[in-house]
Structure formats: C-alpha cells, structure tokens
C-alpha cells in the first residue's frame, strides 16, 4: 500500500506518481489521506490500480479515469469522474453537480445523492445513484445507463439521445423529448446486473423501477417547426 498525505506532499506529486503508472504495475494499492476538498485528485489515471481517498474531494476527482478503481470515503465536489473512460469510481457520500459528465465508459457509483446535471452528455458510462439526482440530469445523454434508487429532479433527460434511464422514485419532470418507456426482459436483466455491480442489489429490485428514454423526435429537423427558428 502506497500512502500519500496530500497535505504534506501536494497534489502535483500525487498525480505525477499516478500518471507514471502506465499500464501494468506492482504498486496496485494507493491511499490518499487529508484530501480536504482539493481539486483534481487522481485525475487522468491510466492503470489497473485501486486508489482510496480518505475524505471529501473538490472539483474533478477521478476525471478521465482509465482502468483504475477509485474509492472516495467522503463526498465529491463538482465534475467527479468527468469523462471517465473505463474503471470504477465509488463515492460513499454525495456528489456535487455534473457527476460523470461526458463519461465514455466505466462505472460510477454514488451511495448518497447526486446534485444537478448528473450524467450530462454521457457517452457510455454507467451510473448508479443510491439516493436522488438533481435537476437537468442526463441532459443530451447519448449512451450508457443511469440507475437512480431515489427521485429525479426537474427536466430529466432533456434532449436525450440513446442513454437508458431507470428511476425508482418520483421524477419531478421530464425534459423535452424524454418519455417513459416500457420495461422489457432485457431491461430487467440490465438493471439486475447494474444494481449488483453498483452495490445496490440489497436495497432495490429491478421491478421497482421505471424506464425513461428518448422519443427520438428531436433527431431530425422538422419542417413544420421552421417558423419557430
């Protein structure tokens, strides 16, 4: 186990050590202590390592993550796991706005609540939120899946493309072109797998969820709307 005291050694030293671990390494377990809300902790990691952050983080923790499993033993600031490519990020507490934004792959698990714009413009990431998500979540979400055990805020999935959204609780309102869709067998199977990997299978069952997706009416220019432009 490599233990890194952020208050002593500084963020640059941490991130350059982590960036130096290209591909395979025998230094597979890392612990970051005294994060104190610092920005960009463990951003840009590209190695199959486990990093445990003991406390709460600031902006962009685990951004652009590839391969690594990053565990935040606190809450995360804005943009956690932004543009994640692969690997896993698990947050014990809450996540601030735009968690998992533009993520292309990997799994983001938020055990508390996520605030506004969770999964905005996501492109393949899987997100499991044990609590609620805030307004404008999954705005222009292109692909991937979001599972919310709690409620969703206003304008869920506005201008959605092909991401799949599953919400167990109430949805305050759906955004433009986002509609409720039927749950078919493949969706129950997908949910079961996501709940298990998202450490939520003891809290919820697939049949408790509703599915939301794109009505696909904004995909093409509609000549009848020309006067509106």
């Amino acid at each position, binding site marked *: 186990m490599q233990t890194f005291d952020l208050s002593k050694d500084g963020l640059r030293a941490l991130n350059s050590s982590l960036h130096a671990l290209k591909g395979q390494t025998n230094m597979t377990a890392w612990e970051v202590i005294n994060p104190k809300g610092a920005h960009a902790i463990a951003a840009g990691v590209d190695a199959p390592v486990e990093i445990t952050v003991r406390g709460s983080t600031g902006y962009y923790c685990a951004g652009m993550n590839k391969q690594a499993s990053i565990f935040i033993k606190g809450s995360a600031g804005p943009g956690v796991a932004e543009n994640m490519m692969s690997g896993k990020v698990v947050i014990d507490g809450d996540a601030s706005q735009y968690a998992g934004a533009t993520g292309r792959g990997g799994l983001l698990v938020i055990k508390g609540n996520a605030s*506004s714009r969770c999964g905005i413009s996501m492109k393949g990431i899987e997100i499991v939120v044990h609590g609620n998500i805030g307004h404008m979540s999954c705005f222009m979400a292109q692909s991937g899946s979001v599972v919310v055990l709690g409620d969703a805020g206003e304008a869920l999935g506005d201008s959605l493309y092909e991401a799949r959204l599953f919400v167990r609780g109430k949805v305050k309102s759906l955004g433009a072109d986002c509609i409720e869709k039927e749950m078919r067998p493949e969706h129950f199977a997908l949910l079961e797998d996501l709940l298990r990997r998202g450490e939520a299978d003891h809290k919820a069952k697939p049949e408790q969820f509703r599915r939301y997706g794109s009505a696909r009416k904004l995909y093409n220019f509609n000549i009848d709307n020309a006067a509106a432009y």
Partner: protein
Amino acid sequence: MCGIVGLFLKDASLEPKLGAMLADMLITMTDRGPDSAGIAIYSGSGEGRAKLTVQSAHPGRDFANLDADLKDAIGTPVLMLIKDTHAVLEVPVAQLEAARSALTHLRPTVKVMSAGEGIEIFKEVGLPKDVAARFGISKMGGTHGIGHTRMATESAVTTMGAHPFSTGNDQCLVHNGSLSNHNGVRRELKRLGMTFETENDTEVGAAFISHKLQSGDTLGHALEATLTDLDGFFTFVVGTKNGFGVVRDPIACKPAVMAETDQYVAFGSEYRALVNLPGIETARIWEPEPATVYFWER
C-alpha cells in the same frame, strides 16, 4: 468565478474567533477570485450605539480630525478607529443618519462602506490574505460574518466594485455569478428612491433586497423575490443584523456548500473553505437546493 464564505455562530464561545475563522475560510478561496476581497463582520457595538464604516483613498488627509469635525457637526462625541484605508466611526444610534449626512459635507470623497448597529465592512482591491491583514480581520470578534473574493465580470476592479455591497443599514450581500437584467432593475430601483455607487450588477441585487426590506418584507420574502425579478446566475449570501440567508438561482451552476453543527452554520463556495472549522468531520453537510431560500436568525 468568485469565492464566498459565510459563518453564523450559534455558540457564543466561538465569537472572539469569528474574524480568524472567516479570514482563514476566505484565504482558502483565493484562487476563485484574486481581484479584490471584502468581509462584513457583525458584532454588537453596545447599547444604543451604531457604526459608520468609511473608506478613503487618502486616509491620512481625510481621517485627520474626522472625529472632532463630526462631533462639532452632530453635537455628540464620536469614537474613531482607523484601520488602513477604512475608519469605523461610532456614534449614538439616533445620530447615525446625522453623522452620515454631515460626512458628505465634511469629507465629500469619503465613501460609506456600511452603517448600522452591528455591521462593519472592510473591502479593497487585492488578495484575501493581504486585505485580511490590512484590516486586522483575524483579531475581530462577532456573531456572524460574510466574506467574498472577486473575479470581476461586471464593472471595474475597484474598491467600490468589491463585495460585500451594503445598500441598507445593517444589510449586506455578496454574489457569485452575473445578473443580466441589472440595468433595467437599477433604473426601476432609482425611480423608487434607491441610490447606487457603481455600475455593478451585484449592487443591484443588494439594493433590490434592501428595497424589499424597507417596504416591510421579511428577509425570506425578499430573497424569494430575487428568484422572479432577477435574471442571470447567482448564488447570493445576505447578512442582516440578526442573521444570514442564502439563495441560488434555479439553474444553480454557481457552487455552494453548507455545513451545520450545534456551534455554527457555515457557507462556502467549495468544501475546501470549510475543512478547518471545528467539528467539520461530523457536521451535517449539504448543497443548498436551487431556487430555495435558506436563512438563519438569532
């Protein structure tokens, strides 16, 4: 960007440390806005006393004999405490408006930062650590306070363009964001008799709330009205004699984190600002909801 911090103490034993805690929080937020910094501190000035905090670009000239000149003008003794470019003038509450009006004749170039029974505002161009040191903020006690470090988007980087803005006795406001309809709202408020020192959008937000309070609205109602009448991005933190309030616009892209324990309620633009507060490890920590008014009063 801009950085905001706020602290409302519930535990009186922390009151002597208010300035030190608030200055530390604000210095942590320096990289959110290094243009200028300001702090409003509320502390009782004693029975029947009020404070006028004033600023001058030429303190040596303007503050010389200011207490004596004011005493001659209003007929009661005035206590003056000079801190760098600012001076705090203590007068009986009943003489506060007389002192303010006399000041405009005695020292026309001196600017009033704040007036009231509790409030003192210190603000200047520069980094939070320098501004806090110039005014000895760390040595100040009080019941609650607000700090701001500015990255200017609207109007010039000047002392008067720094936050907090005070547009009513014992009232102040700091802002992260930018208002887009401030010119229209300013025109309307001017018509209603409000006065302005700058072309700054935040001053309009402050005057909007002050006008509501003057018209008999509660702080809660005044803050709710910002959601319908002000357009743009804002996280506002507002101070009054008895408390402080928080409101974010419905889009809420300007960050805000709050922490509450039995000892205090604290606000920070980021969690970083809160990490040195006592008992933060076990505090209730949350993000204020968009379009939702929060306030604490004693």
